């Protein structure tokens, strides 16, 4: 995926697995020098405060490593629930789907976006 990392969460994660994901992802950002992280949560049936905290942490840590985080594919029912739960996702961009998330990240990298597309390496 070139300068962006795409993470698709396929199943509901229990807490330790979510923490592992957080760690692995930050390592990958560091190792690859990715400028953006796309987290596809379309398969998640709920986002509770723990998962919200993990997503927020990933965004905050990525940001320190100069990468932006976009969460894509949130189910409408999950979005409604998050608002009622009162969970803010500070520093996290959201987009409807992977394409739009990719477009958002690309738009935020004005400098190095020559005509090179994102899937070369």
């Amino acid at each position: 995926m070139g300068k962006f990392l795409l993470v698709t969460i396929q199943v509901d994660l229990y807490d330790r697995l979510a923490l592992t994901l957080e760690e692995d992802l930050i390592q990958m950002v560091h190792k690859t020098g990715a400028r953006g992280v796309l987290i596809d949560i379309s398969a998640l049936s709920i986002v509770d405060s723990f998962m919200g905290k993990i997503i927020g942490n990933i965004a905050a840590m990525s940001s320190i490593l100069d990468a932006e985080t976009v969460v894509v594919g949130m189910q409408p029912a999950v979005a409604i629930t998050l608002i009622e739960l009162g969970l803010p996702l500070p520093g996290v961009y959201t987009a409807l789907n992977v394409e739009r998330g990719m477009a958002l990240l690309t738009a935020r990298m004005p400098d190095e976006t020559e005509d090179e597309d994102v899937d070369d390496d």
Partner: protein
Amino acid sequence: MTTNIREQLSIRQERDLIICRNRVKEAAVKIGMGIVNQTKLITAVSELARNMLIYGGGGNVLLETVTRGREQGVQIVFEDKGPGIADINKAMQDGFTTGKSMGMGLPGARRLVSEFFIESTVGIGTTVKIIKWKNG
């Protein structure tokens, strides 16, 4: 109130949270609860079951489908024998936490369900009962 499903679960480790969530989902689907209310209920259950695990050292969950008049719903009772909550009013405030969480658990869960009861005695334990009505 009449009861259809009645199931007891124990929360001892993180994996139990997922099992608990899945059982609640099955019960909600069985009574025909819509996806938004299902999601709210399961999220509340996730918060309360995790609280029980982190602060109460684990505990038991009683899951039931209930009927009141023409309304159907899912009722869940969380019971732990943990240290209890000294100040429930404080614990119900947004952002209050004694641990590593964001302090959204109790107040957030209350907003997501139709009925919410909490009872806690220091040194004895905590019981939380929630009901989510199918159309509530």
